[in-house]
């Protein structure tokens, strides 16, 4: 592949990751074209880009998921490359192929590689061929109830049912014993059909108390590939990652080297090019099992950037332009420790219910070792149409202990008003001894919520004092007599409930 410098990149995404890519383009002197749905004219990625192009109505299917409209925007703006970010069309082989056919550089792997590694059972087969251990289970998609029963008995319970074309926790079912199997299989297949248009599933043995660890890889089009060590992603809620870190507090140097070597082997075997991530489960004994490959930039890529000093997005663009990797494996090292908290518009006190709405005020943390990759700003209305990720707060420190102290400090400075967010939840997690010890697995969030939600001491007296002073000042300012102030209906109702509790 020859070098062909990129001049103008269309960013087929929105939110914080589109902002991230705009910034990388600007620093490389490449023109960045933002695209936006009708809900996103005022989004931050549009504000920061040098060019912007509308691509249709708010629903993703008519804008960010519309291959035709994205390609038309690329044509209209004269872009010579497309960066898909993550989600939306990032792992859509047809989109990558359409870009290739039009001579647009797709910033990611080749369309065949996406197809190969995107179908979960073919990725598992590829892993087995490359000598990478996989979770015991089926290597081919399974479509009928009888075959599912047969495979289940072979593998043993508990087991996981997964959509073959899946991702993001859809069509995923934990099956504890054979009695649950038929109903779970039916649900998983119908969900998979709805989400991916394909009801084939595969089965994997369920590991006990697994950790979720992933390896970042980079490969150029000249046959060079490296890994950039691991990310620990066990702090998740219903298969959505919340907190990630690098290094993993429990991965040993030997395990790190082994997983890195496995990842590079699979990358080379599959002819993979550009950035990608191999997800592993690691069992209590420290044995890694390949889970799947994400053929794109990962949400949590900044923790790797912080510890390696490597700008992954810039390298994606340079690799897409045909450049060679500018370093060899032995030149890479993890320096210090990085932690990321995903700041979501979700209300931790209402079961993490999404909380779109207008951000009335926002103060972001700053100072040494703090990076806030945000897609929002004060005055911005978080739309209901897309995912609830507002920002990724990332810190870097000399050690895990310093990174934790720094994250606590940063969280204490971060205030978003107008919509409930996960920030207060993270402030509590970062003080939790189990988190601090590094002794956790993928069950952590559920157990933390269960043991802390009822038990925690809430600052009700200070809140009441602050609200009352505010009210006194408001009345003074408005010179309203007290009797004319409105009392909300929920007040009367709530007060009755509270009094009942006291009696």
């Amino acid at each position, binding site marked *: 592949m020859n070098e062909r410098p990129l001049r103008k990149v269309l960013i087929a995404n929105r939110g914080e990751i589109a902002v991230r890519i705009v910034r990388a383009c600007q620093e490389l002197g490449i023109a960045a074209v933002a695209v936006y749905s009708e809900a996103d004219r005022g989004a931050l990625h549009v504000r920061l880009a040098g060019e912007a192009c509308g691509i249709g109505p708010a629903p993703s299917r008519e804008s960010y998921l519309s291959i035709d409209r994205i390609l038309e925007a690329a044509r209209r703006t004269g872009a010579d490359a497309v960066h898909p970010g993550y989600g939306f069309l990032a792992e859509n082989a047809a989109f990558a192929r359409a870009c290739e056919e039009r001579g647009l550089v797709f910033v990611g792997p080749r369309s065949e590689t996406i197809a190969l590694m995107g179908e979960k059972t073919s990725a598992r087969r590829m892993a087995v061929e490359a000598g990478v251990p996989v979770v015991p289970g089926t290597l081919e998609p399974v479509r009928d109830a009888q075959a599912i029963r047969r495979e289940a008995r072979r593998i043993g319970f508990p087991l996981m049912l997964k959509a073959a074309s899946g991702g993001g926790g859809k069509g995923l079912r934990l099956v504890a014993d054979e009695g649950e199997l038929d109903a779970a299989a039916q649900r998983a297949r119908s969900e998979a059909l709805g989400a991916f248009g394909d009801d084939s599933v595969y089965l994997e043995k369920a590991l006990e108390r697994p950790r979720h660890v992933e390896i970042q890889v980079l490969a150029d089009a000249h046959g060079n590939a490296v890994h950039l060590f691991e990310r620990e992603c066990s702090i998740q809620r219903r298969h959505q990652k919340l907190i990630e870190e690098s290094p993993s507090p429990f991965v040993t140097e030997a395990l790190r080297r082994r997983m890195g070597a496995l990842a590079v082997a699979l990358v080379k075997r599959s002819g993979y090019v550009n950035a990608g991530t191999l997800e592993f489960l690691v069992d209590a004994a420290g044995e890694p099992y390949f889970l799947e490959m994400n053929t794109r930039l990962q949400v949590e890529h900044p923790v790797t950037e912080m510890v390696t000093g490597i700008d992954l997005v810039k390298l994606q663009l340079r690799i897409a332009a045909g450049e060679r990797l500018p370093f060899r494996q032995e030149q890479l090292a993890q320096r210090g420790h990085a932690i990321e908290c995903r700041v979501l518009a979700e209300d931790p006190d209402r079961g*993490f219910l999404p909380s779109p709405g207008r951000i009335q005020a926002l103060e972001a943390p700053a100072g040494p070792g703090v990076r806030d990759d945000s897609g929002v700003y004060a005055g911005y209305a978080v739309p*209901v149409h897309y995912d609830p990720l507002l920002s990724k707060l990332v810190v870097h420190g000399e050690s895990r202990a310093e990174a934790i102290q720094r994250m606590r400090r940063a969280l204490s400075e971060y205030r978003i*008003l107008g919509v409930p967010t996960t920030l207060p939840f993270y402030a509590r997690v970062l003080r939790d001894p189990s988190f601090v010890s590094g002794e956790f697995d993928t069950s952590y969030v559920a157990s933390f919520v269960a043991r802390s939600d009822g038990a925690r001491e809430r600052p*009700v007296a200070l809140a009441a004092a602050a*609200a009352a002073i*505010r009210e*006194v000042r408001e009345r003074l300012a408005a010179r309203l007599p007290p009797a004319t102030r409105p009392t909300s209906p929920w007040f009367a109702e*709530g007060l009755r*409930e509270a009094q009942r509790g006291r009696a």
Partner: protein
Amino acid sequence: MIFEALVEGRALRVEVKGRGDRYDVTVDDRRFEVDWRENGRHFVSLLVDGRNLELGLEARAGGCIVVFDDDRLAVELRDAVRGGALGGKPAAGGPARLSAPMPGKIVRVLVLPGTAVEAGQGLLVMEAMKMENEIRSPRAGLVREIAVRDGQAVETGALLAVVG
């Protein structure tokens, strides 16, 4: 000025004296001397006996939401009955009507009409903002009505269920 405050289900008596920027506040039996400073339109710094507390305030009808670094509390206020303590007869709550907090799709209904549910028990699962979210009962009672079915698309404010 004396208020009855309701904070996350707890009723408190709050008395505020002073003005300008200095206040003497008594919440039930606890007394705070507060130096109050508004920073911009939404944030306030309270010095309570030299300790600094930085809060965000979101205005709401009948009170406000107080945003701490590690918590977020809704406070409702009303003027205390003159000379009287909190009291009054507890009235039975009416049926609770749950409506959709945002546009989305009903993934699954979890309970049948007529089921007895606990406060906090899941009633249905709704997909919104790319996530599946469990909609829970705000109170214990009987499920009077389930107004949606699996797969149905709903708009903000659409009635989902009635529990009473």
